[in-house]
């Protein structure tokens, strides 16, 4: 679904921002400012950070926590017409930027990925909220600067604060696949989902007056296809798979007192697809066999749970987000040798603490500040890299690295294949939706059940209007008639 439509020009369902940097919208992760997500009240119970139901209704006429357009950016286009209509002149014509909001010429002051690749240097990057408690160690000098890219889509959280913030009840999480959607017909434009989402991944379409968000390309997911952002990722770094979880344990997991325990709590909500008891319970719930099979082969279960090398973005927001990130191994900084460390390509462990990207930064992003968690993941990844290097480059079989990583050599190599070879069928294990019954129901919607080939017709009913709140809208020409088709073929033959 594209966002170049009127009303969504400023919207990016999927954006890739530079870290360190301000992000999109600017400083989105600073919840002191935006008050998104959940927090615990004095009695340790979960509540929305922006306030409860009564406060929401009382502030409905002006949402105090809503970012303004300038926090995203004012979208613009160029006056391309000038380039072809300008009169003959000594000087080249210039296409000036025009605001897509007001139509007026504008001075572009900020835009999408304005600070990409540390552009603007210290001025912009240092305003990154993740740097707040590590300013001392971070120098924006060329020798010590670091950057990596952070792709962001909707997290499709287990405990979505946007859904909880919507007064109209227009937002919902789908029971079958956990995708979080906005019912466009029931949305009344109260805007609390926009401010309630700590990732700022619900957007207000100012033309339609309705909220919109990443749909995880559900029509593709239902057909067993990966999302567009995954399919088109040239780096092949996106993985899609399903995990089984116990929805009744979500609230307790999101309520653990220490934010650094949230990662473990969230992992404990997931169910082991190899466990016979889990399989039996899933079958009893009516989860189809091919879904259970897909759960066993899920790359997400491997990365996030079985191997534990993927971490959730900002677990401290307590939404139990479901887009997980494998933290990047980065080059060792040049100052190492000055620290008395001798560069040895196989001594990966000493190097973890000297990576170009500070562990504290990654920990602020992915582990509620818990550096040990990040260190553990990077350690495991470094072991994998060293193990494969020994095997492939030096021709040595060395089981000790796998031991260090706490895995078997076979598992370590399987992890390598998934991360480095990243075959299409390994990255995306997406079972098709079981819509057999639902589809039949949909086709009959608005008919009297007599509208089939050779039947008595549609009983004089008006044409069925597709239910626009339904995820499955019949496509025009979908119900072609085989008989018509065959008779046409006959004509062509004759």
């Amino acid at each position, binding site marked *: 679904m594209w966002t170049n439509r009127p009303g969504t020009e400023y919207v990016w369902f999927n954006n890739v921002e530079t870290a360190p940097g301000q992000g999109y919208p600017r400083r989105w992760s600073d919840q002191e400012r935006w008050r998104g997500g959940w927090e615990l009240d004095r009695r340790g119970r979960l509540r929305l950070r922006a306030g409860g139901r009564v406060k929401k209704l009382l502030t409905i006429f002006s949402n105090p926590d809503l970012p303004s357009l300038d926090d995203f950016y004012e979208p613009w286009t160029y006056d391309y017409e000038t380039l072809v209509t300008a009169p003959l002149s000594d000087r080249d014509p210039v296409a000036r930027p025009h605001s897509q909001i007001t139509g007026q010429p504008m001075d572009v002051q900020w835009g999408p990925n304005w600070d990409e690749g540390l552009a603007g240097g210290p001025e912009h990057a240092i305003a990154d909220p993740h740097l707040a408690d590590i300013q001392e160690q971070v120098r924006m000098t060329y020798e010590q600067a670091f950057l990596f890219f952070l792709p962001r889509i909707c997290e499709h959280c287990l405990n979505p604060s946007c859904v909880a913030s919507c007064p109209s009840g227009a937002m919902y999480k789908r*029971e079958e696949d956990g995708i979080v959607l906005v019912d466009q017909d029931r949305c*009344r434009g109260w805007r609390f989902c926009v401010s309630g989402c700590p990732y700022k991944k619900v957007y207000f379409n100012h033309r339609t007056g309705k909220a919109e968000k990443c749909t995880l390309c559900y029509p593709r997911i239902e057909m067993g296809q990966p999302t567009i952002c995954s399919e088109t990722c040239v780096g092949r770094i996106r993985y899609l798979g399903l995990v089984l979880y116990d929805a009744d344990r979500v609230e307790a997991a999101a309520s653990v007192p220490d934010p650094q325990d949230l990662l473990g709590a969230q992992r404990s909500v997931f169910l082991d697809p190899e466990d016979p008891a889990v399989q039996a319970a899933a079958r009893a719930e009516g989860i189809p066999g091919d879904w259970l099979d897909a759960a066993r082969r899920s790359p997400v279960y491997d990365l996030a749970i079985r191997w534990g090398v993927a971490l959730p973005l900002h677990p401290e927001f307590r939404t139990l987000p479901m887009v997980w990130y494998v933290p990047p191994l980065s080059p060792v900084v040049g100052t190492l040798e000055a620290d008395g460390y001798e560069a040895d390509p196989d001594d990966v462990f000493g190097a973890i603490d000297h990576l170009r990207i500070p562990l504290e930064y990654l920990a602020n992003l992915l582990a509620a500040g818990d550096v040990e968690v990040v260190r553990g993941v990077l350690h495991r990844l470094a072991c994998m890299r060293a193990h494969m290097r020994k095997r492939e480059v030096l021709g040595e079989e060395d089981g000790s690295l796998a031991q260090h990583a706490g895995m078997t050599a076979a598992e370590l190599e399987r992890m390598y294949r998934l991360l480095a070879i990243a075959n299409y069928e390994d990255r995306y294990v997406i079972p098709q939706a079981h819509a057999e019954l639902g589809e039949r129901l949909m086709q009959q919607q608005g008919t009297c059940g007599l509208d089939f080939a050779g039947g008595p017709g549609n009983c004089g009913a008006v044409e069925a209007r597709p239910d626009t709140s339904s995820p499955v809208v019949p496509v025009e020409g979908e119900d072609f008639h085989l008989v018509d088709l065959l008779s046409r073929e006959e004509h062509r033959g004759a």
Partner: protein
Amino acid sequence: MSAGEVLLWIIFPYVAIATFLVGHWWRYRTDQFGWTSGSTQLFERKILGWAGPAFHYGALAAVGGHVIGLMIPKSFTEAVGMSESTYRWFSAIAGAVAGAVCVVGFAGLVYRRATNARVRRTTSRTDLAVYFLLVVLIGLGCWMTFGHNLLTKSPYDYRDSVSAWWRSLFILQPDVDAVQDANTVYQVHAIVAWAFWALFPFSRLVHAWSIPLQYLGRPYVLYRRRYAASR
């Protein structure tokens, strides 16, 4: 009773009521997607921050005042022992506060819409019509509350005239006599109000019916099945 009076005090109100009812039925059936508050907070938040709540809370209080003034007959307040003077001061002071808050908020919103290019561009022709009617209604309303009730020695008794006619419409026995000699300001206010109600279902004012009170008694996280009937 002249033809003009029948038109103004009987036909026009009933046409407006019919348009209001049928318009809402039609809009609700066919235009759920267009049913929205039409917020422009994304474009401008500073003025809206005070003007939006002031206008809405003032308007809601004014609606409450109208409910009391129009729907509760004088005989009822007298029966419960409320003197004319008590009622007058209650309605005048409460009405003046609500009117003042509403006017301040409304002025802020109009200023914001007129001066902020981003907001101005979103203004539709229906919005302009609504704004025009609101200017007239709020202006006359405040004139009546301040000029004919709060700041006068001889307050105008609308409960025996305009209110009686308004109630009579709903029991299908329009009492034109009660209104035809009423104070002109009250008459104009009433007629413009019927135009306002007729326009209501076709404007973004419909978001008023969507005050999400059900939120107060709802679980936070909602789940939906893709095919509700598939099980």
